[in-house]
């Protein structure tokens, strides 16, 4: 190999070579980049950075203001009008009776978890299976039809879901199961919620299955397994981390949904006692339609009715803070699944 300058170039270049210079001859005036553009280019990224930092600041700001109001319940602040509460009597008590000075929020937390859990129980399997269907089995016309259906389902406003539940499902349930007694409660909220969160799960699950290497699918079918066996034994396990993420994000949507649930759930903070009564009198079905309440519905229901600075009002903000912290935990959880996937 030969790369010395003498042998690589025969032409008498040295004679014609220009002396080394510090700068080039200036560009012709019509092709000179203006000072404005140079300065703009140098500093513009700060504008973009500021926009991103604003988002970070918002995350922190929301936490700060919610904590300031939510934690006020537990601190002897001058703005408070009632007594200072303890963490235990708020977070570990099922006794909610603000008028008689009891502020246990477990009924709402329990209500939220029950409704969300039920909704996920309905939405996760159907959503994941629909994801498989769209990604692996459906003919292309069906695929695009399903995409449009999901786009529409996710776009329908929550109050419209609420009014549908209120004017169509509630009377229907009341008529067919409850001998025309008024219906409301967990089961109906969960049904509506499941339809609301299913598009999230379907779209993430579809992405998860489409992201799998084709070889997985082909490999297991080459071994003679049926399409379904390939899906059940190979594809679903392989996509598990991302399916989990899909479910967690669906869960996040469900737990934070306020209006639709508020319109159909019945808004009864004393649902635990009522449900006990129903189950004692036997019909399990009736218990499913116990009017209940969740963190979000109680906020919507009572926030406009409570004076600022009262323990009641402060506890409502503490419930908001709890919802926000739950969101953060769920998002961090999806990050963990993501990491497992890489490993």
């Amino acid at each position: 190999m030969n790369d010395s300058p003498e042998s690589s170039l025969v032409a008498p270049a040295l004679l014609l070579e220009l002396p080394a210079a510090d700068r080039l001859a200036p560009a012709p005036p019509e092709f000179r980049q203006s000072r404005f553009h140079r300065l703009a280019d140098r500093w513009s990224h700060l504008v973009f950075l500021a926009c991103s930092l604003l988002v970070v600041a918002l995350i922190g700001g929301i936490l700060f203001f919610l904590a300031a109001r939510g934690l006020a319940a537990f601190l002897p602040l001058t703005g408070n009008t009632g007594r200072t509460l303890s963490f235990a009597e708020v977070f570990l008590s099922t006794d909610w009776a603000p008028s008689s000075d009891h502020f246990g929020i477990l009924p709402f937390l329990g209500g939220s978890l029950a409704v969300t859990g039920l909704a996920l129980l309905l939405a996760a399997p159907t959503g994941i299976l629909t994801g498989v269907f769209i990604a692996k089995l459906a003919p292309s016309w069906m695929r695009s039809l399903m995409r449009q259906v999901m786009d529409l389902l996710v776009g329908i406003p929550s109050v419209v879901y609420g009014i549908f539940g209120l004017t169509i499902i509630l009377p229907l349930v009341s008529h067919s199961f409850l001998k025309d007694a008024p219906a409301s409660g967990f089961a109906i909220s969960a049904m509506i919620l499941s339809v609301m969160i299913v598009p999230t799960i379907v779209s993430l699950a579809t992405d998860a299955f489409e992201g799998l290497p084709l070889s997985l699918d082909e490999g297991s079918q080459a071994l003679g397994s049926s399409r379904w066996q390939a899906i059940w034994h190979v594809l679903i396990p392989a996509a598990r981390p991302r399916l989990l993420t899909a479910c967690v994000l669906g869960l996040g949507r469900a737990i934070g949904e306020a209006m639709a649930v508020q319109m159909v759930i019945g808004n009864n903070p004393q649902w635990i006692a009522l449900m006990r009564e129903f189950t004692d009198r036997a019909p399990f079905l009736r218990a499913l339609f116990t009017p209940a309440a969740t963190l979000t519905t109680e906020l919507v229901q009572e926030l406009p009715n409570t004076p600022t600075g009262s323990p009641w009002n402060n506890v409502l903000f503490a419930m908001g803070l709890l919802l926000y912290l739950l969101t953060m935990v769920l998002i961090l959880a999806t990050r963990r699944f993501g990491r497992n996937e890489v490993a």
Partner: protein
Amino acid sequence: MRAIATLRSPSRAKHVDKFMRGVLWVIALGFILVLAVFVGAILHQGWPVLRLDFLTRMPETLEAGGGIKPQIFNSIYLVLLSLGLSLPIGLGAGVYMAEYAGKGRTLNFFRLCIETLAATPSIVLALFGMIVFVQTLGWSFSIRSGALTLALLNIPVITRVTEVSLMSVPRELKEASYGLGATKLQTILKVALPYAATGILTGLVLTAGRAFGESAILVFTAGTNTSAIFPDFRLTVPGETLSVHLWYVTSDGTLPDAREIAAGTAAVMILVLLILNLSVRFLDRAIRRRTR
């Protein structure tokens, strides 16, 4: 391999396969049915109410026969204001993440924040807006409180869609621009963003749809009343939107024809949603035609 273990009886496997395919079809068709029943029922209920004077009359507070004219105006006004507030910020943040943040921890952290904001329940944003705008700044229930809080809902969506659309700009186009002596800013403004514009526009339409349907935020920031003047462009007056109106008339119960008004309002919202979805489909097709 587990797949082999289940193969003991091939004919049984075949039956299971057939059965499960059937189940998947049923589930998928079930969702289509749910949507059809849903949209059908809402439109069916609302149709008798949907007369022109329903759309063009002022609402009543105690008597029947009120319209939804100011709510329609407020919905559009608030959506436009909130988009105007969130678009520059979302665009800026999206540009930063796609073009400047690199690929390391910074980007990851910003993404985490965007995801968190996107997943934050709207009732939590409502509380934030209520504390900051309604109470601390003393703006009470007003268009400006509502628009600013609603913008918080839009920002993460616009950021994400900007980032994704910019990522899809072909490298060759950027190189061509740099190769002609463009600065990075010129390349972003003159090549990357115009190329990404259709994608961003699609995202904007979807964001508008979401903001249009949002109610929890606005109940606590824009309020449940409307100005007596029409059209009232002042930012300091309360601005009840269609979605808030729909919720309020059903939960308040002072109106004798609350049911009809709710049904009509829901039908209007569904129609708007269908129109927005159609325009998204149209934009999508435009994008696909260009990439081909």
